[in-house]
């Protein structure tokens, strides 16, 4: 046993020393490994950094490339803002309408009467045969940041003499303040639907009978208009106008105002293909000696008193997708009541009567566009009236007695539109304005020169 112990001790000593030397070796190896590791890490880091730098370089290069590409593209395709402005850039836009027609009547145009109505203004029929219609010259431009101006001159031939008339001449603020618009000068009133459109934009050669009966043709005048459009999805416009009273059917003025109007319009799209507009309007005047026609051509009817007109208009349009077809339905109703005195030629003459009159008229029309070059349409006019006064003979002579007769008119038209700028129209009227029914035929051309005109609804 004694021998074993030293052996064991020595063995364990040897073992321990051997283990110690192995430990240092491991330690050395470990250190080497660590060194290696560090070395690799350094290298990897360097590599990574290099890669990142390279990536960033390509990225900036790419960015540069994109920027250069963009610059080149802009140089090639972006507009040059310094394009020289044409010399006449400040000149107003010019548009000229040429209009002419051939008219054929069965009756004598001089004998034309509208039963129950005493006509004034430009209510006469077109002259028989070939004639030049109204040629219109329109100049318009923005005046400055606030105002827009437009003048429309009408050239017409009256019995061999050329007459120039100022149809419209007004300045307007397209945007006075948030929805408010102010218009001043001479202009067509915004009452009704057709009234503020120029004759060449109408769908028939002549005005509806009710327009002829009440306004001579169209209601306009010198004055002011203020209108407001509400900030709603539904189109809502209200407006009012003051007129001087020089134009038929007003006459005379009170502290400068001869007549005033109020109107409201509502409209919207049902969808992309169907849209509508409804208008309500009112016109009122305190009339002083208004002149109009009488049954006897040599005499003049005079009216003084209160005159009110209320009107309703409806428009519906159908414009189908992917098509040049379209449909337009239009209806207008006017009712006028007047209370005052009627005289023939002179209020001091014995031919005087008190007068109360109720006159109503409406028309309905439909226009169908078959394709981009052909349109056709039908129109029906209807008027009625009744009156009473102290001297019914005077009223009869003035043409204000209808005896229950209701004027009517049937119209049909066909249009050929070679382009957006020209129109040839054939129209037939069966006109029962009075008991002598008249058959009328018109062949009309309308050409538009100059600025491409925009069309209102």
């Amino acid at each position, binding site marked *: 046993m004694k021998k074993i112990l030293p052996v064991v001790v020595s063995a364990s000593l040897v073992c321990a020393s051997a283990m110690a030397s192995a430990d240092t070796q491991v330690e050395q190896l470990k250190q080497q490994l660590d060194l290696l590791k560090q070395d690799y890490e350094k290298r990897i880091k360097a590599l990574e950094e290099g890669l990142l730098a390279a990536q960033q370089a390509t990225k900036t290069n790419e960015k540069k490339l*994109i920027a250069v590409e*963009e610059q080149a*593209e*802009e140089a*090639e*395709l*972006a*507009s*040059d803002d310094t394009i020289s402005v044409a010399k006449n850039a400040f000149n107003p836009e010019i548009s000229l309408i040429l209009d002419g027609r051939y008219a054929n009547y069965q009756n004598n145009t001089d004998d034309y009467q509208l039963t129950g109505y005493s006509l004034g203004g430009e209510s006469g029929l077109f002259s028989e045969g070939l004639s030049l219609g109204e040629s219109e010259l329109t100049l318009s431009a*923005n005046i400055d*940041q606030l105002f*827009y101006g437009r003048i429309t001159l009408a050239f017409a031939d009256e019995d061999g003499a050329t007459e120039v008339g100022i149809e419209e001449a007004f300045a*307007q603020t*397209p*945007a*006075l*303040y*948030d*929805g*408010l*618009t102010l218009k001043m000068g001479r202009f067509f009133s915004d009452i009704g639907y057709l009234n503020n459109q120029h004759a060449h934009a109408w769908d028939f050669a002549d005005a509806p009978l009710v327009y002829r009966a009440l306004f001579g043709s169209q209601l306009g005048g010198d004055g002011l208009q203020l*209108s*407001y*459009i509400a*900030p*709603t*999805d*539904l*189109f*809502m*416009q209200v407006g009012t106008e003051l007129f001087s009273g020089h134009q038929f059917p007003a006459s005379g003025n009170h502290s400068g105002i001869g007549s005033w109007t109020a109107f409201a*319009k*509502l*409209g*919207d*799209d049902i969808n*992309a293909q169907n*849209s*509508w*507009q409804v208008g309500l309007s009112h016109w009122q005047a305190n009339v002083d000696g208004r002149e109009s026609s009488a049954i006897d051509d040599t005499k003049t009817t005079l009216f003084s008193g209160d005159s009110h007109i209320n009107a309703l208009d409806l428009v519906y*349009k159908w*414009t189908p*997708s*992917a*098509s*040049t077809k379209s449909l337009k339905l239009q209806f207008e109703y006017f009712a006028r009541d007047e209370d005052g005195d009627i005289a023939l030629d002179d209020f001091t003459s014995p031919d005087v009567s008190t007068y109360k009159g109720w006159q109503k008229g409406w028309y309905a029309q439909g226009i169908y566009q078959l*394709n*981009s*070059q052909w349109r056709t349409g039908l129109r029906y006019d209807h008027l009625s009236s009744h009156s009473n006064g102290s001297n019914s003979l005077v009223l009869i002579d003035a043409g204000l007695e209808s005896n229950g007769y209701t004027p009517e008119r049937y119209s049909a038209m066909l249009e050929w539109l*070679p*382009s*957006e*700028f020209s129109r040839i129209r054939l129209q037939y009227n069966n006109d029962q304005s009075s008991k002598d029914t008249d058959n009328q035929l018109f062949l009309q051309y309308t050409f538009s020169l100059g600025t*491409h005109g*925009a*069309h*209102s*609804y």
Partner: protein
Amino acid sequence: MVLIAINISETIQMNINQYFLVFLLFISIMPAHATPINVFACEPEWAALSQELGGSLVSTFSATTAEQDPHHIQARPGLIAKIRRADILVCSGADLEIGWLPVLLQKSANPKVQAGQKGYFMTSKMVKLLDKPTILDRSMGDVHAAGNPHIQLDPRRMNIVAKKLSQRLQQIDPTHISEYQNKLAQFKVRWKKAIKKWQQATKEIQGKSIIVHHNSWVYLQQWLKLNKVAELEPKPGVPPSSSHLAHLLKQMQQTPADLIIYSTYQDPKAAHWLSKKTNITAVALPSTVSDNETLFHWMDRLIQLLKDPIK
């Protein structure tokens, strides 16, 4: 609100004029920050572009659809109501909307979108136009004096318009400049990528010859290097006549084209007639985005429709 209350209580002491002024100021400032920018686009592609560039900061409305010819639109009351409330008008310009936009503008009573204002943005003003007529004469048909307005069909031009439109939106809505800038940057990256893709996809149809209904594809032709050999309309804006079509038929019998193109809003009759007689495929291409479609989807669809029949 307290400030306003103080203002009002103070102004009661003032005369009525001043009170009214404060009131006007109050109502004019109020909605400007509360609601998104109202964009009135004349054509769907500009509504789609505004949407890309404005996201939820804008509320877009398009006056026309892909099924409507933007040259022939009624100045409807519904459109007046929309333009009345617009903060910016984004339209092609170059007389494309001349038959109706001037009426809308005049009736809108909206000072913000009148010509020359910040809210009046005509995309055709931002890029070089093709087809500038050397002679202005209506015997040439309905020519556009400023040049061809159908620029949306060149994605490179669209890219330029995007940049300028974003800048304009930033001017109108300066409180969100950085958001508009971000959206523009994102759009440009995606659009560039898409352009590369479309160009790659159309390599094989380069130089192919096409017949168009109306001369409204010039920018697409230039971009994809297509070769227009004829138009179905005898003059721009004049519908195809039988004599002109007979003439085209003769021309096609001698040197046939590869494809007949018409827009989805145009009458397909003439294109189909010629196609039947010549066995050249006629295809209706979308000139603009359809409902709820992005610019990307639209161009994808257009390229596909154009490419398939030629291959």
